[in-house]
């Protein structure tokens, strides 16, 4: 496990629409590994590894963008109100910190409320950057920020902000590094704006016009106290998507992944995610339709600043993709 790379990936700034920094990090790593690399109009990065055979095109997509917040109002005393960039819940963030593109750090806190037993609305939270007035505040309306938390490796577990979906980006990079010759042309798509509109994967898949598309993303687990029932556990291997709330995986794509896992002896889990979706939902519907599926890395506390994954799951996801794309 290349923890240095994953640290770099998780800590790079990249809320939806503002992926320059993370794109530069990934671009530097993939450029020597690919036959060609380009950036699409909305900002998605594509690395093409040419195949040996008939020229079928397969897309592997992991999204570069991360959840964040955007300033909506700066009050007279210099406190910031904000809105969500992607799905964030107030409960996860009170007491946490955010970082703006210029390095400014803010603390998220909450107004005093009559009934503090209730979960506050996002509108009741504010960010304190230590300013003493509106004029003194170093940020303005429309500035985006991301959550802060370092990457920690503890035994076989990894804890960090933005494992969603930088661990997917990591899996794509590792797959590209290790993969020998493949029959298909492989388009490694590092997409933008997944957390808000799926627009990056949608438009890049349109351009590529692929024969098959796979998203590589995190998924939730059912293995925490009183979790919603879900038959995916952290540490039990990659999850092969059956369906989620935005997509039903093409059965042939799903079975291709299952067959590959069984052939090389990788443990896997069948995934049904009731709330949430991935870039595959958008890629499936471009042009005349694309057979699509998804490989997920089981992840606890998705969309919190401290997401948790298992190292073995990550490594086996790389092995599963390699087996599926380069059949021996």
């Amino acid at each position: 496990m290349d923890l240095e790379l994953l640290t770099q990936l998780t800590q790079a700034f990249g809320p939806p629409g503002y992926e320059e920094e993370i794109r530069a990090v990934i671009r530097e790593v993939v450029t020597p590994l690919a036959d060609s690399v380009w950036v699409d109009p909305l900002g998605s990065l594509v690395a093409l590894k040419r195949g040996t055979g008939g020229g079928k095109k397969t897309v592997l997509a992991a999204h570069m963008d991360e959840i964040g917040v955007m300033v909506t109002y700066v009050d007279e005393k210099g406190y910031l109100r904000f809105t969500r960039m992607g799905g964030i819940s107030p409960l996860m963030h009170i007491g946490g910190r955010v970082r703006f593109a210029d390095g400014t750090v803010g603390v998220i806190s909450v107004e005093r409320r009559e009934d503090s037993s209730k979960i506050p609305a996002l509108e009741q939270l504010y960010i304190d950057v230590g300013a003493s007035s509106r004029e003194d505040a170093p940020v303005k309306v429309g500035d985006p920020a991301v959550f802060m938390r370092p990457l920690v490796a503890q035994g076989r577990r990894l804890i960090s902000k933005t494992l969603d979906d930088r661990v997917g980006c990591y899996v794509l990079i590792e797959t590209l590094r290790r993969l020998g010759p493949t029959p298909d042309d492989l388009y490694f798509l590092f997409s933008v704006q997944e957390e808000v509109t799926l627009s990056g994967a949608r438009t890049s898949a349109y351009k590529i016009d692929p024969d098959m598309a796979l998203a590589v993303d995190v998924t939730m687990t059912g293995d925490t106290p009183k979790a919603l029932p879900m038959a995916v556990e952290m540490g039990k291997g990659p999850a092969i998507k059956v369906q989620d709330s935005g997509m039903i995986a093409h059965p042939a794509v799903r079975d291709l992944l299952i067959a590959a896992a069984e052939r090389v002896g990788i443990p896997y889990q069948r995934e049904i995610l009731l709330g949430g979706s991935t870039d595959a939902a958008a890629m499936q519907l471009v042009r005349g339709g694309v057979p699509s599926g998804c490989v997920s890395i089981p992840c606890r506390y998705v969309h919190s600043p401290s997401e948790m994954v298992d190292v073995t799951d990550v490594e086996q996801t790389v092995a599963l993709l390699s087996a599926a794309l380069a059949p021996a």
Partner: protein
Amino acid sequence: MNRDALLELLYMLSNTPGTSGDEIEVRRALRPHLEGHVESLRVDAMGNLIAHKKGTGAHDLRVLLTAHMDEVGLMVVDHTGEGALKVATSGSIDARLLPGLEVRVGPQARPGVIGIKAIHRADEDENVIPVSALTVDIGAHDREEALELAPIGTRITFATTAHPLGQLVAGKAFDDRAGCAALVALLQGPPLPCDVFGVFTVQEEVGLRGARVAGYTVAPAAAFVLEGTIADDLPKEEEGSPTSEIGKGPVLTVMDRSYVADPRLVRLVIQVATAAGIPYQFKQPGIGGTDAGTIHFTREGVPAITLAIPCRYIHGPVALLDPQDLEHTVALLRASLEQLTPEVIQRP
């Protein structure tokens, strides 16, 4: 276009009825103001009016500019035995403001009044009357007469006639006839370095539908969406965002519910505004959606931004705007397009 001509155009467009899917009269009203100023003018399968204005040849960027023709209103869905019309909303309208309003019904702009069946005022705190319980009275004596005068599907719009109001102007449908007026003013001006496709779109208020196919057809390198947007700038009990304020200049969208504006275009517009001394403001992020929400994801992706004229009381019978904001929006759009070069949006 001078201020008098611009306001005359705005008044005319504001007074024209055109709910979603029924924009024909707006389209018809726009045509004579575009002919002679653009190379071609055509209507697509959805009803979008597409005007192509060739550039000076300085570079070959194709730029899409849109403003939507449709306005919020009502539609006849049934008739009562007494000859009143049952209605549904077309686009989002606050049901609280409807009872008692004067409206215009159908292509003949037949006068009507929104009444309420079985009115009782015993309880001042009575809940909001849902639109489904409202009826529109057109003076018909019975169901047959109502059916003949206003069959199911008949469009209903607010009866407002636009007029000056102090330093401001008042009218219905400024969302988005203000944007339409700004787009006409731009297209009537001299050619720009880029190839411009000015599209007056349909069905924005019911799901950004016209813009979606316009984006596909034009396949532009960038898109600028013109809007009339929310100004919630009256005094508030608690300090908070006004979303936008009238008189403070064009409103830039950074992000709304439908998309994230391209940061490079946001930077360009800010630079241009600053250099030209045009005031501007940011729209409260995360609020509302515009045609950019469906344009940006067409084909290989389109960098997009929204410039809006701040309007008070949109989606109601009377909205207010400041003519200076309208003029500044036209000026800022033109100046931005003059500075939009391939380098601004290229992806090395």
